[in-house]
């Protein structure tokens, strides 16, 4: 066990993966001498050399398309997309190539590509630096989508993602890069890919979220407890596939669910979660699932982001709605 920031845990996870498998390559913009704009790859090029830790030209489609060719040749590329909003030039290579190559080749060609993406708001960034694009990728067959919320999961799930023979979108909430916690580097726990985790047990309602909002949800649960409301908090962790067993087990017990994410509401992951939970828990639900999300707007300028991003009070407003109490979300047209 040692204390690490989430950024440090990601760095340690990359180092472990590079050490364990000579076919692992890390590639991206500014990841070499600079160590990445968030320093996640700090020191790795010095340690593993410029071939295994490659600075690339500023071309995201080029990074992913080249990674496809490297995977074709048996390599295991880990691509860093510098910011969430910069992933769209690579969208075609990701959804038309990376996601489909195994299927297209009837299983002959594997695409063990990990695409690391700093995501989300909360740090006062410029435009195109605060997006939450998970729904596009969770909607795409052939991709797995992981969202981490803490140093331990960052360390474990990054290595799981790299070792996975399928392509994985790996979302890192940039507002949590400096979050510090004890990390067990023994890798003795069972693989966590594809599973959600109950972070706090409760009885009155289930609060489901992922990534940067997990800490907000835990704080909201603390605040709710002060008012006598017992919230169960689930960190989804895997956005494709979704751990329906964990969700259904919880919601069947609590009868109420609040789903929170930073991305816009409409056709977001929350819609899928609400539908899937309703299908599985219809006779157990005391109230319709409630969504607390970013609004259906382009991510706003930083002085407005605190109004756009779900915070503790908006989550509690959602909990009130789920409990049938007065709430801004209580009545729908």
């Amino acid at each position, binding site marked *: 066990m040692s204390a690490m920031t989430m950024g440090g845990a990601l760095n340690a996870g990359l180092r472990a993966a590079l050490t364990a498998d000579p076919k692992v390559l890390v590639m991206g913009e500014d990841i070499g001498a600079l160590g990445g704009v968030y320093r996640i790859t700090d020191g790795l090029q010095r340690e593993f050399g410029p071939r295994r830790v490659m600075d690339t030209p500023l071309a995201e*489609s*080029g990074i992913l398309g080249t990674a496809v060719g490297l995977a*074709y040749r048996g390599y295991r590329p880990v691509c860093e997309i510098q910011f969430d909003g910069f992933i769209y030039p690579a969208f*075609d*290579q990701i959804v038309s190539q990376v996601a489909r190559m195994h*299927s297209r080749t009837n299983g002959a060609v594997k695409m063990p590509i990990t695409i690391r993406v700093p995501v989300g708001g909360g740090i006062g960034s410029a435009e195109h630096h605060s997006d939450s694009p998970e729904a596009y990728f969770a909607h795409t067959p052939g991709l797995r989508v992981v969202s981490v919320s803490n140093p331990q999961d960052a360390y474990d799930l990054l290595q799981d993602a790299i070792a996975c023979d*399928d392509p994985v979108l790996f979302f890192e909430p940039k507002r949590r890069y400096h979050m510090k916690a004890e990390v067990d580097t023994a890798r003795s726990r069972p693989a966590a890919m*594809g599973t959600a985790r109950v972070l706090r047990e409760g009885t009155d309602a289930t609060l489901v979220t992922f990534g940067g909002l997990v800490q907000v949800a835990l704080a909201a649960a603390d605040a709710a407890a002060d008012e006598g409301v017992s919230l169960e908090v689930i960190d989804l962790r895997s956005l494709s596939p979704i751990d329906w067993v964990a969700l259904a087990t919880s919601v069947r017990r609590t009868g109420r669910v609040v789903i929170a994410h930073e991305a816009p509401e409409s056709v977001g992951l929350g819609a899928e979660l609400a539908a899937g939970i309703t299908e599985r828990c219809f006779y157990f639900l005391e109230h319709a699932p409630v969504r607390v999300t970013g609004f259906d707007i382009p991510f706003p300028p930083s002085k407005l982001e605190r109004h756009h991003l779900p915070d503790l009070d908006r989550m509690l407003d959602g909990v009130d709605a789920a409990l049938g109490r007065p709430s801004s979300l209580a009545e729908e047209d």
Partner: protein
Amino acid sequence: MSNTVAAPRASGTPDSDPALRGAVRILTPSGERTDEPEYGCQVADVDDEALLALHDDMVVVRRIDTEATNLQRQGELALWPPLLGQEAAQIGSARALRSDDFAFTSYRENGVAYCRGVTPAQLMPVWRGVTASGWDPYSVGMATPQVIIAAQTLHATGYALGLQYDGSDAAAIAYFGDGATSEGDASEALVFAATYKAPVVFFCQNNHWAISEPVTLQSGSSLAGRAAGFGVPSVAVDGNDVLAVMAVTRAALARARAGGGPSFIEAVTYRMGPHTTADDPTRYREPAELEAWRRMDPIDRVEKHLVSRGVLTDERRAETQAHADQVAKAMRDACIGMPDPDPMSLFEHVYAEPHSDIDRQRTRFAAYLDSFEDAR
């Protein structure tokens, strides 16, 4: 500024085509083999017998193309992209490859596939709609053909980088068309390949038409000339001259193997048929243009040469035709006898490892199918 839109210019006949001016040529349209000073040495070993073999390839591939077009017309294939007119470009380049080289192509490179060892029967299932890939890419050194325009130029570059890292002297080759040069991926591939000195050959078949758009709409300058801006050496070649194509491809491959990095080849050829069997080129191009290019037919010039050498006898010609007919018949039989895929194959290979969401859908669909009386 005028608010009228300029009509696309015609693509150009061989006589007026700037792309052909100065293009490397060894075998003239009249069938004369010339001493090309720079590249002739690359094919000095290609004697009459070797040229007869290339001729055989071209005749067989054209026969495959005709048969596949017929199969589409008869409802046996959903679609077919003919390569009529591009036989020399595809066979001259593909026959320059080693077995450990790797080709990343678009959907029209059926001649390349034939040379890589893909059987004509394996060309059928994708266009019949029964599978997404007719072969295992690793078994022949050729990727499943790409439909997204220019995407494969990056895949070839990445694969070449892998070859470089592995210490191999094999090379990758990317096949794409004139239209693909407008895509961002083609430019990004040239940037990446030049930066890392990747052992990759960019083989552009300028067949003058991207469906209905003439090459003049894709570029204000020559395609080969564009490569210089990326720091990639390039050459334009008469794409209907199988010897010249083989010569420039061998030179580019030799550069790649020696660590010299990428090359760009513009093979100036002509798509004599439609874009696919769903296309009608009479809507957008002049019959005179097609007629002019017919006089540049890549098979005609090899035949003229081989006849003048006295090696393409009537007997040999009949043998070649018989071989081609036999290949076509085997392909037709394989196509018509091909069963529809099992419905449960829908779920195969979407993921390499178990995925609980798709696994649930598979289980449910199997139960649904089983619920029908006649399924039992």
